[in-house]
């Protein structure tokens, strides 16, 4: 497929790997956007999802809202945020945070809500307070699903962070937007390839993270089912 040969032709040149428009510099910018957007979205979505799952309230509203939420067009939000903020350079943050919130919140809610009632009873019977049950039982048991939500959100944010370039910022989107403007398909293909590789790395990162922080008993169960 010539997509790969386009991308390779550009990426295989040494001078594309240094300087402020080189792959490493753009990678760092791209990671900055991703990490910041994910951090803000997590701060909003994780506590909200845990709380709703713990109390069992608001779930129906959440799932209905998530569906409308999904229809919000990223490009529209970006230009709207950019213009109404008077051209602020942080305008890219709004669509990315908006994009990342629903997967994190919904999976956290479903994960915490779905924790086996017997487990919670046993924990309460051992004398745990409601708060202890939440943090020592419900959250750890829901962790695989929470991580899955975070991973989904992160991959979408990585792929969509390319929009920052539309309002003259950096990241791998720079290659795509510049390539589009100058009809340089090699550059566009190289930008897309970088994004895909980064998305794969994120996928592996979360798989590794799951191995580190999900309790061994849960992992065993997941393998058997």
């Amino acid at each position, binding site marked *: 497929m010539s997509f790969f040969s386009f991308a390779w032709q550009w990426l295989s040149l040494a001078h594309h790997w240094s300087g402020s428009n080189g792959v490493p510099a753009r990678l760092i910018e791209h990671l900055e956007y991703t990490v910041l957007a994910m951090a803000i979205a997590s701060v909003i979505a994780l506590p909200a999802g845990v709380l709703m799952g713990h109390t069992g309230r608001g779930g129906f509203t959440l799932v209905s809202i998530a569906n409308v939420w999904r229809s919000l067009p990223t*490009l529209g*939000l970006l230009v709207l945020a950019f213009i109404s903020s008077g051209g602020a350079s942080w305008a890219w943050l709004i669509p990315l945070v908006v994009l990342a919130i629903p997967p994190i919140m919904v999976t956290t809610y479903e994960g915490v809500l779905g924790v086996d009632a017997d487990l919670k009873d046993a924990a309460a019977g051992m004398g745990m307070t409601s708060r202890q049950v939440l943090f020592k039982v419900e959250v750890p048991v829901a962790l695989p699903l929470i991580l899955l939500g975070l991973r989904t959100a992160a991959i979408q944010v990585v792929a969509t962070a*390319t929009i920052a370039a539309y309002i003259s910022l950096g990241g791998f*989107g720079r290659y795509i937007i510049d390539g589009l403007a100058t009809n340089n398909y090699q550059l566009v293909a190289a930008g897309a390839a970088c994004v895909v590789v980064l998305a794969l790395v994120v996928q592996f990162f979360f798989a590794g993270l799951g191995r580190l922080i999900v309790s061994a008993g849960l992992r065993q169960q997941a393998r058997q089912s």
Partner: protein
Amino acid sequence: MSWAFSNASLLAHLTGQNAYLALVPVLVGLAVSLPLGVLCARFGWLYPPVLGLISVLYALPGLALFVVLIAYTGLSDTTVMIPMGVYSLAAIFPSVVDGLRSVPEPVRQAAVAMGFGTWRRLVMVELPIAVPVVIAGLRVAAVSSISLVSVGGLIGIGGLGYLFIDGEQRNFTTEIVVGIILIIILSLVTDTVLVLLRRVLTPWQRGRGRISRRADIRAELAARPAGM
């Protein structure tokens, strides 16, 4: 508001174009997903590699795909519709496999005992039972496709996305807000039609409340592909 009324015919045209560019690929995605899903549900070992390949396609930024495709299909509707079809496939295909796997074993055995052959069992028993889960996938595909088409505005074929690009160049927020609202309305209408379709296709489910939690989670994780 008065801007929207005085440009009603333009808005109607763009909304129609947006629906066309977004929904035809969803139908194609469904048409490809069904046989592929049936195959992967039957031959379990096929599923992980096919799913892996499809999720890589999912991470391709839409804008990049558009630009790469211009080299082959030019500035035509196809250029925008191919990526939409690929994304739809990625959202619908796993739900077909999940739906088919959700058929309870006793039901399958009952069908066999009644003398149903493989094909009749598939068409008359297994696929109908899979409908709610498949429709959950279809809803995700349709709604994300409608909102993603707007990115095509950057290459001049984007339905309502035109309003974003034009609004940005003219520094005119009303136009952008109208575009966002119309996309939301179009999504809601499409989503409602799909929910109604599910009710019509699965009369036995009426009054049973919501479909399986698994379908919801799956739908949320399929969330939506890359914006640009």
